[in-house]
């Protein structure tokens, strides 16, 4: 590990910034990277889960300060996510027995990521032309009681079933695709439940925290976690996650969705490379890492400009730090 100290710190930092900004765990990047660095796959997964747990705790605390966290929505989604993931695990088991799991999972990843990237980018272009997406929030508006209100997410009379259904669907997809599922859940919360972008990001981190916490525990219990490695990544990750979460306060929601669209596109290209066997393991990972590095630069720029401007106006400690502004 010692020869990779700086690389591990940097990996943690970059994935932390991106994860704190978008509400993701980042397992799509870290697990393969650790594997390429020589960690056996079970140790790479367990170590990644532990580092995600620590840094999402840091990012979640920041989003709570900023008022980007909706506990009701988080609870409802978690209730749906658990059976969804279990169902996916059963399906993956059957596919593994049939010997088709690798190809099937990659095709699902490729289709879902391409579709999500397409939706996010299309919505951005529509918004630029002054058009609204008519089906935005469609699941939250299901005409089935019981209903609930949530001031944090600006929801009134939203159907509980829509949220449970989304939790089930995203849990199922995450269970098939691997990782915490933030890639799917954040856009789904924005478009299908109509939740404000920043609240979707903060609330998703609660789901990431729960799944990574449970995963880290069970992997550590089986002896599949390298704690010192996870700690080095956490030193970069907790710092990055906090900065990424803080940047959401200053970034306009449209800009946040634009970056999300770019990252989803890079992920889809990376999976396509894997699926068609182009560039081995390294090229798909390099695509994801380059996109993450680029986005990290933009996010830190947004944060720096925002804090400097707010300090100039004497507003930073009162508002951003304690989260007294909406978004």
């Amino acid at each position, binding site marked *: 590990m010692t020869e990779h100290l700086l690389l591990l710190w940097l990996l943690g930092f970059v994935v932390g910034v991106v994860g704190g900004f978008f509400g993701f765990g980042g397992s799509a990047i870290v697990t393969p990277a650790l594997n390429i660095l020589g960690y056996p796959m079970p140790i790479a997964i367990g170590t990644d889960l532990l580092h995600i*747990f620590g840094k999402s705790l840091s990012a979640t605390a920041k989003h709570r300060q900023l008022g980007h966290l909706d506990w009701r929505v988080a609870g409802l989604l978690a209730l749906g996510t658990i059976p969804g993931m279990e169902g996916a695990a059963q399906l993956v088991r059957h596919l593994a027995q049939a010997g088709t799991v690798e190809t099937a999972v990659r095709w699902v990843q490729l289709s879902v990521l391409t579709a999500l990237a397409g939706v996010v980018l299309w919505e951005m272009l529509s918004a630029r032309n002054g058009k609204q997406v008519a089906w935005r929030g469609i699941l939250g508006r299901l005409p089935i009681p019981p209903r609930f209100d949530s001031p944090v997410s600006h929801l009134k009379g939203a159907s509980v079933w829509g949220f449970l259904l989304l939790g089930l669907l995203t849990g199922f997809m995450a269970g098939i695709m691997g990782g915490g599922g933030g890639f799917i859940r954040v856009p789904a919360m924005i478009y299908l439940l109509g939740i404000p972008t920043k609240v979707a990001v903060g609330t998703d981190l609660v789901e990431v925290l729960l799944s990574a916490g449970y995963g880290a525990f069970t992997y550590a219990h089986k002896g599949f976690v390298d704690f010192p490695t996870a700690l080095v990544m956490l030193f970069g990750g907790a710092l990055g996650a906090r900065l990424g979460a803080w940047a959401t306060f200053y970034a306009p929601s449209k800009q946040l969705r634009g970056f999300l669209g770019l990252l989803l596109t890079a992920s889809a290209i990376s999976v396509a490379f894997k699926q068609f066997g182009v560039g081995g393991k390294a090229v798909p990972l390099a695509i994801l890492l380059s996109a993450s590095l680029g986005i990290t630069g933009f996010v830190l720029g947004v944060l720096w400009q925002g804090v400097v401007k707010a300090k100039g106006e004497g507003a930073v400690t009162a508002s951003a730090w304690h989260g007294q502004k909406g978004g």
Partner: protein
Amino acid sequence: MGRWLSLLTAAVSSVAVVAFSQHLHGEFWRVLMALGLFGAVGLSLGSLADRLLLWLTQLGGGGR
């Protein structure tokens, strides 16, 4: 959390995590303890990150 308290928590918890993480296989309470300490490191580092950014912006001439 105060700056020094955050720094102390991060340092002590990091050392404790490494100490606790030796031979964790099958040890329920030690795994739980290591995870708790790991979480404490994450939170205290986050708190330090806030202070670091504010300090940097002051250095960068962002103050009034």
